[in-house]
Every structure is written in C-alpha cells, then in structure tokens.
C-alpha cells in the first residue's frame, strides 16, 4: 500500500500576504530536491498558481455538486420539504415546491422526506479540477480547483481538488488555501498535517493572523508562522508574533522591491539570479520535525 504523503497547508486570514509565493516556492524547492510533490491550488475564487508554475499539459475534470430538483407534476405542494430544509433552499410557491440552487447544500433530506418521491438529487456543474505536470519538472504536479464565475459553491470545488491531489502518489502535498477563515479555508486545510500561516507584520496582518490561529486551534492542526514583507520599520513586530502561544515563527522574509517586481512578472524566487534566492528550507525542516514526532501536537487525534 502506498504510504500517505506529508500534507502541509499554506493559509492566512488576510489576503495578499504571500501565500501563493510561499506555496509555489516550497513546492518547487521540494521537487528540485527530489521529492515527488503535488501542489493543490485551493483558491478557487482566484486561482493563480498556474501563472508561476505552468503545466506541460493538463487534464480537466468538471466538478458536479448535488442539488435537489423537484418534478413539478408529481409535487403536491405538501410542504414537508420546505419545513425541514435547514437552508431555506426549497420553498412552496403556488402549486409546486421550488429549489434555489444557490442556497441548496445538496444534503438530500428533502428527497428523503418527500412522500411523492418528487425530489431527486441532480449534479450541478460548479467548477473544474485542472491537473498536470509542471513545465519545470514532472516531479511537481499542479492541481487547481477553479470555481465557475458566478457560482457560490467554492468549498465543493476545493474538496474535489484536494481529494484529487491526495489521490496522486507523492511524498509531499502542498495545499495553497484561499484567504479568510470560513468554510472555503476549512475545505482546503482539513486534510493537512501541518498549517503554515503567512503573516504580514502590520496592524491589519496581526489582527487577521489572530483569527487564522483560532482556526488552526479549532481544527487541531499543528501550526507555524512565516513572517513575510518584514521591513526595518516593522522589524520589532516579529517579536509581537510570538504572542501566539505555542505557534513558532519558523521563517522570516524581508520586504524586497526586487522580489515584488519579479513576482509581478510571474517569476519564482527559488530560481535566484538578480531576484535574490529565497529558500523555504526552514519550513521543510519544521514539517520534518512534526512527522518525526518531535512535536506533541503531532500526536493529536485526527
């Protein structure tokens, strides 16, 4: 039986802290050191990893999510379904029940209780999972969850992408989470063994980091912090990061205009050159220490 890969998720409460830069760089560096690596882009609202790590070729599978569908001629408008729906997604209007797809979570309770068997679950297309080896190296495969514009069911697309990524035989899976702390982030990080929080040492960044730490505590995933865009002005601030008890700061990257400029053009700092090489080795060392059982959190029940 294939052993399970190590799974690290990259998250942050605030947007624009550098999750994508960190996730793509960790994945590229791990693959370059010989690990079979899978990067999963879970920012289904705004997926960007493919810009930095173009795929050599790709296969696309559509994501369907179940939603209830009412056969109006069979419906007697009894209201059993609308009375039980936790989301207000099915309502009786006139002589038939009607389903609002955006509100439906696809649980199937209404279909269970319909005395006329007038409700069935249908697959609604909400997005795609795109996968393929990167141009950089076939040892690095990129899986992207992409929400169709106008759809609201990002968590379903993210779950499909994560499942796809974990199904590929590999040594390491890197999950690039969306910003925020709600259902989309939970869908992205719930399978992770370790959670790396990318934080900007600014007042906004510190506030949002606190929320991300709460999320990690709630999900009981071992966490560490990577401080990004550290400048001489906010230099004392990394000390403030240590207020999050038990969450070590494992890495710190300085703000560099040059890095920002090159990143803007779609380059990765792992390649060095005049961009200045950035190594994510401290993060991989931290991850290794977790799987070696050094951290007590690693023994938490999953």
């Amino acid at each position: 039986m294939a052993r399970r890969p190590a799974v690290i998720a990259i998250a942050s409460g605030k947007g624009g802290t550098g999750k994508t830069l960190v996730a793509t760089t960790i994945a590229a560096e791990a693959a370059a050191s010989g690990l079979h690596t899978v990067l999963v882009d879970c920012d289904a609202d705004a997926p960007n990893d493919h810009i930095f790590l173009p795929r050599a070729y790709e296969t696309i599978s559509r994501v369907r999510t179940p939603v209830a569908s009412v056969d109006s001629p069979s419906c007697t408008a009894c209201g059993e379904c609308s009375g039980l729906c936790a989301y207000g997604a099915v309502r009786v209007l006139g002589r038939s029940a009607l389903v609002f797809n955006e509100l439906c979570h696809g649980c199937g309770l209404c279909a269970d209780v319909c005395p006329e068997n007038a409700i069935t679950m249908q697959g609604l297309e909400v997005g795609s999972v795109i996968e393929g080896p990167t141009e950089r190296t076939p040892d690095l495969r990129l899986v992207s969850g992409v929400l169709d514009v106008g759809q609201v069911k990002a968590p379903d697309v993210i779950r499909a992408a994560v499942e796809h990524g974990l199904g590929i035989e590999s040594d390491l899976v890197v999950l690039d989470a969306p910003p925020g702390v709600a259902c989309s982030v939970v869908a992205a990080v719930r399978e992770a063994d370790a959670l790396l929080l990318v934080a900007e040492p600014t007042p906004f960044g510190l506030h949002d980091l606190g929320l991300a730490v709460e999320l990690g505590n709630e999900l009981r995933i071992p966490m560490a912090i990577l401080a990004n865009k550290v400048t001489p002005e906010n230099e004392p601030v990394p000390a403030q990061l240590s207020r999050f008890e038990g969450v070590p700061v494992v890495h710190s990257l300085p703000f560099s205009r040059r890095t920002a400029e090159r990143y803007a053009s779609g380059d990765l700092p792992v390649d060095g050159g005049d961009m200045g090489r950035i190594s994510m080795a401290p993060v991989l060392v931290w991850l290794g220490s977790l799987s070696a059982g050094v951290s007590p959190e690693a023994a938490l029940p999953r």
Partner: protein
Amino acid sequence: MKVLTVASGKGGTGKSTLSALLARLASDELRVALADADVEASNLPIALQVDKVACDEFNGGVRAVIDADACTGCALCEPVCRFDAITPKGSAYAVDGASCEGCTRCFHVCPAGAITLRRQHAGEVCTGVSSVGPMAFGQLRPAHDLSGRLVTEVRSRAVALGAQNGAELLIIDGPPGTGCPAIASLTGADLVLAVTEPTRSGAHDLGRLEELVRRFGLPLAVVLNKADLSKSGAREVRELCEAREMPLLAEVPFDPALVTALELLAKGEVPQAHGFGTGGMRIIREIWRQLSATLGLAQQASESR
C-alpha cells in the same frame, strides 16, 4: 443614498486602504456611512477608529452532536452525511464540527435518538461610529460557515445606519474573491470600484471579477494600485481594461505616504485634506473627484453648501 462597493478578485490589493482614504475625503463634502463586508478579516474598523461599538450575536445554523452513550453504532448516519462529517469513534460515531453543515439529515435517520442539534454562535454583527461616519461590520468566528449571510446582514445594517444618519454615500469595503461573500457585497451597488495590482495574478483575478460584475449588470471602474511595481504587469492590466471596456480611473504608485496616512487615520489623527496634495495622495483625491462625478454626488455636495 448612493452605494459604492470596493472590490477585488485578489486579496491584499489595497481595498481597505483605498476605502478608508476615500471615505476620509468624501466626509469633507458629504455625510458618509461605511460597511466592512470582509467578515473573515475585518480591517476597516482598525483603519477608521471605530468607537461606541454595539454588537449582536450572529446565529448560524445548527451542528449535529452524537451522544456516544446513546449511539448504538448502527452506522445509518455515516453514509447519509454529504459532508463526510461523521466517522466511527470507538464503538460509536462522532461528528466533525468544522465539516458539519447542519443539514439535520443524520438527526432524522438516527433510530436511537442519539443525535442532537446545537445552534451555533457563528459570529457577531456590529455597528459603531468611526472617525468619518457610522459603520457596520461583522466578524465570523473562525471555522464557521455562512459568511455570505453575515455579509448580507452587515450590508443591510449599514443601509439602515446610512438612512438614519441621512448619509448621501455608503462605501462598502468588500471581501476578496468572486464567491459567495463577494457576491453578497455587490448586491445593490451603484458602482463597483475594482482595486487591482500590476501582477499577473492581479490581472487574472480582475478578469474574473469583471465577469461576475457584468453578470449582475453593475457599472465597474478600476484602480491600478502599486502601479509602478511592474511595467509588464501594469501593461497587462491596462490591456485587459481596454479589451473589456472597463474605465481605468487611476494608477496609484507604490507610495509609503499612503501607509503613513492610513496609520494616522488608525491613530485617530485624521490627516488634513490638504495632505492629499502630493504624490499618491493627490491621485486618491483625483479618484474621489471622478467617483463623486460618476455617482452624481458632486452636484449634491455643491447644492448642500
């Protein structure tokens, strides 16, 4: 009351910074109300020194809880859960609270009555008085869902606040992305101001946001923030704006003066309007002029003088 929603596909482009500075300028001419619709990472209250805060609990849905002693281990609940939230634990079953979406289907199939439903405290919805006008905001508790519904609640409270205070303009600082919370923040907008950055990610996500906004038939204008960070990135954004016929209102340089102004605002030291006369700040003032003309507010302001 006109409604301006500040949005962006990508996170970290400068929505809250721009919202706060525009609100500061607008408040010189008009009565302004504000909403922070990023309920997962609410930063506008920090930027604009909110005071006299009153919060209500925001009730989310329910979550299922299995009483291990009453559970007979019959396993009927596990396969009916669409969210894979139910797994065996010892001789009984248990619910993973973060994955449960509260559909109640397991509660209905359990023959032993071992499952109870607990109402969730999913967050808070708040109102307060900021340095430039009344503000509504919210905070979702981490790992809870329904952020779209909380955004809708924040927006409707802001509309009510604005009406009570005779506000002529409501500025909504939106969440990043194009999903459920972003859609909730666009409802009822008279104009959507998309803030982007000159990166390939910025252009890509602006394209997705434009598609979304067009579906709702809302007018859209673009601000390119940190514009001098990349020539090629800026070109890409300009080309996209031209191709999709989006007016590019302004290009704001990467200017530390904007951060300083924001810090002053956050300390309650409201920067003087004449401070908006140089560099990036002058461009913010120009953006405000254009927005107020587009929304038909310039005339109202001169009439009320």
